[in-house]
């Protein structure tokens, strides 16, 4: 490729290092139609083949018509919608309330666990025991224990609602997880931040409040949002103790009509709520990633 845009007009010896012509920028890549469309074509075709094939296999099954009538009857699905929707609103309420409680309780436990000094040893031990126990227990078991066990104790002065105790079980279980996420976020804050805060004379508590915790929360926001998505589904666990949320309502509908399409209705409602939240989480995580990259530039 020859470039003649910059000619060396200077007389020899006048400007000693003769400036070499600058090579032109690379031309915009010329993609042939084949190179552009072939990958897209392959992607579409393979997707159609795989999922179409799967659909063919399923619908070709001799029991498919029966299954379709049992699970995917659109009329039944719509008929169940009002009842399931009412239950779903209960899910969303439980979810919203638990979310706030978990975010606060988890942070509280994480902070308790990070308090220094010998006097705080019992607090730290209690926090560790709490996290280890509650994180190790299946959420379903927690819900059963609290939702059925505690009201059965019949202790005067304690609320006895299953909704209340079921929600408590979720909050306790998730707060244990969440506290560990916060703790990781706090540990990820660079030591220099603590040194700087200490050198300025901040108390241990002020160091947490002004230097460590705000950065920790920023560090773990994507992880927390992931837990929020998981929690949304786990609210359905309260159906086992009789809380009339979406799954429970769908079951009730099913037991009346002997048709499972209401379950699909519930499934679709859950997806409707979790998928956008998951997309949002991805976006936050990506922004977080970009921020970090920029910082360590």
């Amino acid at each position: 490729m020859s470039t003649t845009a910059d000619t060396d007009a200077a007389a020899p010896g006048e400007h000693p290092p003769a400036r070499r012509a600058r090579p032109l920028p690379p031309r915009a890549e010329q993609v042939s139609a084949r190179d552009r469309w072939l990958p897209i074509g392959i992607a579409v075709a393979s997707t159609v083949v795989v999922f179409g094939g799967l659909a063919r296999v399923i619908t070709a099954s001799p029991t498919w018509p029966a299954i379709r009538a049992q699970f995917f009857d659109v009329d039944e699905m719509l008929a169940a919608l009002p009842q399931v929707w009412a239950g779903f609103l209960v899910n969303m309420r439980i979810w919203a309330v638990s979310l706030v409680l978990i975010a606060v309780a988890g942070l509280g436990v994480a902070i308790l666990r990070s308090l220094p000094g010998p006097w705080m040893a019992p607090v730290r031990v209690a926090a560790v025991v709490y996290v280890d126990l509650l994180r190790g227990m299946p959420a379903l078991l927690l819900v059963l224990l609290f939702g059925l066990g505690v009201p059965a104790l019949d202790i005067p002065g304690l609320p006895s609602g299953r909704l209340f105790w079921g929600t408590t079980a979720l909050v306790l279980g998730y707060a244990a997880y969440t506290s560990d996420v916060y703790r990781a976020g706090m540990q990820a804050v660079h030591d220099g931040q603590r040194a700087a805060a200490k050198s300025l004379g901040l108390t241990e508590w002020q160091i947490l409040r002004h230097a460590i915790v705000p950065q920790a929360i920023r560090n773990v926001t994507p992880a927390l949002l992931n837990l929020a998505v998981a929690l949304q589904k786990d609210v359905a666990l309260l159906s086992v103790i009789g809380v009339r949320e979406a799954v429970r309502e769908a079951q009730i509908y099913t037991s009346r009509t002997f048709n499972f399409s209401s379950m699909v209705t519930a499934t679709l409602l859950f997806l409707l709520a979790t998928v956008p939240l998951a997309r949002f989480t991805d976006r936050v995580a990506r922004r977080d990633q970009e921020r970090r990259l920029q910082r360590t530039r």
Partner: protein
Amino acid sequence: MSAATVPKLRVDDVTKYYGSTLVLDGVDLDVADHEVVCLIGASGSGKSTLLRCVNRLEPFDHGRIMLDGVSVDDPSFGRTGLCRRVAIVFQAFNLFPHKTVLDNVTLAPRRVHRRDRAEAEARAHELLERLGLDGLAAKYPEQLSGGQQQRVAVVRALATDPDVLLLDEVTAALDPELVGGVLDVIRDLKAGGMTMMIVTHEMAFARDVADRVAFLDGGRIVEVGPPDRVLRDPTEPRTRAFLQRIIEAGRL
């Protein structure tokens, strides 16, 4: 420095271990009021540790450090008295990334020393302007260049009007073209009479700004004296070897 006056800062036989590793080995050093002492020495010789002992970021095992004749762990300082009077600036700036420049600077005056907001902010703006940072008060650290961040860190350290400023390799993390601005700020502080202990690898700067240079090796102060003597004509073989290495690395 006359023997009759109490030095601003006296480091007296300070010894410190990390576990069983000796990091400071009977360090003696007096810093007079308005004096600038530069600490030089190889990596791991204990320079940072010494600074961190002076403002009690690190505890030490033996010896005393006195500010105006009062031991730094004297109860009369209270919890925050020493932090107000001895400030430190770190190599990595350590600004709080989630706070604006102004909030970084006013955090200690407001939360630790209970100045009211207007007063703290007025003082902050004054200092920012003096260090050529006016207009950056509302920015976040990550929006600034390294040199600007380090100058903000200096402002943050100055915000409580300390008597002594400790600087730990404050230009080491900066791109070469940003070093000059920060060093100019330190020169101005010296002209204003600030007492400073400066850890630096910039020998030319040390020669220029220091009243005395102290060479640390293996946790001991091997040689201390005026920069012209210590840097040009050291008496100790270890100082000579160190300076030789620096010259070979092209940093003198």
